C-alpha cells in the first residue's frame, strides 16, 4: 500500500515543477478548457517504475524532471507546428545578429536558440534589460531562450496573439483544484504506473504574425 503522504508530496512536486517550467504561456495565448474533442494532442510520459519510492520512507518520492519534461515537450510541439507550417514565412538571415531588431515589431516575442545566446546578449547588451522572467529587448520584446536541440539554427519572431492554444484542465485530488496537467498513479503488481500529461490543441495559428529566421553563417 502506498504511503498517502508520499503520494501527496509526489503530486505537489510534479505540479510545482511543471508550473515553474511552463514556457508556452509566455509565448502564445493560452485558453484553459474543460471539454475536449478528438483533435487534441497529449504531451506526456507514462513510465512504469518500482513502487518502492512511494512506500519506503528512505526513498525520495520525487522524480526530478517529470514536470519539466512535459513543459519542454509543449515547447517542442509548438516549434514543430510553427516550422512545419507552410504558410509561415521563412527567411534566410545572413546578417550580423545585432541587426536582428530590424525584423522585430513592437511587442513581438523572440524565440532564440541557445546557439546564438552569447552572441545576441553580448552584441545587443545595451538594448537588453533584465529583471523579469525573461530578458527584454528595447523594453518591449521578450527574448525567450530555447535549447539548440529544439530550435537549431532558427530564431522565431512572433506576436503573442499569433497562436491560440487550448489547454485542458484536470481535477487534482491533492490540491482539489483544476490544474493544467493530469497526474495519476496506478498500482501494477510491484510497479507504479505513472501518467503525467497535458492535453492541448492549437486552435488558431496566424502565419502572417510569425517569422522564422534561418541563420546562415
Amino acid at each position, binding site marked *: 500500500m502506498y504511503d498517502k503522504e508520499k*503520494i501527496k508530496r509526489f503530486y505537489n512536486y510534479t505540479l510545482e515543477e511543471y508550473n515553474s517550467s511552463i514556457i508556452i504561456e509566455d509565448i502564445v495565448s493560452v485558453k484553459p478548457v474543460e471539454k*475536449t474533442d478528438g483533435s487534441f494532442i497529449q504531451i506526456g510520459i507514462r513510465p512504469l517504475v518500482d513502487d518502492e519510492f512511494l512506500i519506503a520512507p528512505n526513498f525520495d518520492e520525487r522524480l526530478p*524532471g517529470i514536470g519539466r519534461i512535459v513543459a519542454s515537450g509543449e515547447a517542442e510541439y509548438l516549434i514543430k507546428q510553427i516550422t512545419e507550417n507552410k504558410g509561415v514565412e521563412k527567411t534566410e538571415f545572413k546578417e550580423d545578429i545585432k541587426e536582428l531588431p530590424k525584423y522585430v515589431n513592437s511587442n513581438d516575442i523572440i524565440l532564440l536558440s541557445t546557439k546564438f545566446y552569447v552572441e545576441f546578449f*553580448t552584441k545587443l547588451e545595451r538594448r537588453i534589460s533584465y529583471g523579469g522572467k525573461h530578458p527584454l529587448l528595447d523594453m518591449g520584446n521578450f527574448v525567450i531562450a530555447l535549447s539548440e536541440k529544439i530550435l537549431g539554427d532558427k530564431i522565431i519572431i512572433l506576436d503573442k496573439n499569433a497562436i491560440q492554444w487550448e489547454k485542458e484542465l484536470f481535477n487534482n485530488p491533492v490540491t482539489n483544484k483544476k490544474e493544467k496537467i493530469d497526474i*495519476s498513479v496506478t498500482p501494477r503488481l510491484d510497479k507504479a504506473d505513472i501518467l503525467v500529461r497535458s492535453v492541448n490543441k492549437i486552435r488558431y495559428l496566424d502565419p502572417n504574425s510569425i517569422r522564422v529566421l534561418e541563420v546562415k553563417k
Partner: protein
Amino acid sequence: MNSFLRKLFGIDNPLGVFYGRLIIGLVLASYGFLIFFLNSIENQWTRISIAMAFWSMGLMFIFDARTILKEYYETDKKVTLPDKKEASILPFLKLVFLGGSIIFLVKFYFAQNPSFYPLTILLIAIILIIVFNEKISHFQISKDGVLIKMMQDINKSYSEIDLKKKDWNFKIEEVKNVRQRKNKKIL
C-alpha cells in the same frame, strides 16, 4: 562592489568611457611633447624613445575612444555607419610603444646620474593602462562567463530531460483516452 566599479569606470556609459579615453590619450600624447623641454634628460635618443612611448600610448587610447564612439552611435543611437574595412593601426602603435619603452629603459640603465622623473611617469602610465584594461576586460570576461553559464544551464536542463524521455516513455500523440484516470484507490 561590481556596480561601484562599473560606475567608477563608466562601463555602462559609453560616452563617459569615450571622453575618459580621449582625455587620457590626449594627456599622454601631450606629455610626449613635453619630454623635449625637460632639461633632466640630456641624451636625444632617450628623449625620442620615451616620447615615442608616450605618443603611441596616447594614440592607442584615442583610437580606442574612437571605436567606443563608433559603437555608441551604432548601438545606442542606431545610426548605420558605412562598413568600411579599416586596417588597424593598434598593432603598429603597440610595437612603437614597446620599442620606445625598451630603448628608453636601456638608455636609462646606462645613463650616468639619470633622472627618475620620466621613468616614474612612464611606469605610472603603464600601470594606469594595465588597471584600466584589466578592469574592463574583467567585466567583459565575467559578463561573457555568466552568459555562457546561462546558455550551458539551458542546454544541460534540456539534455537531462532528453535522456529521460525514452525511460519514461515520452510521447506527443493524439489523445486516445479523453477521460481522466481515477486515483481514489491510492489516495
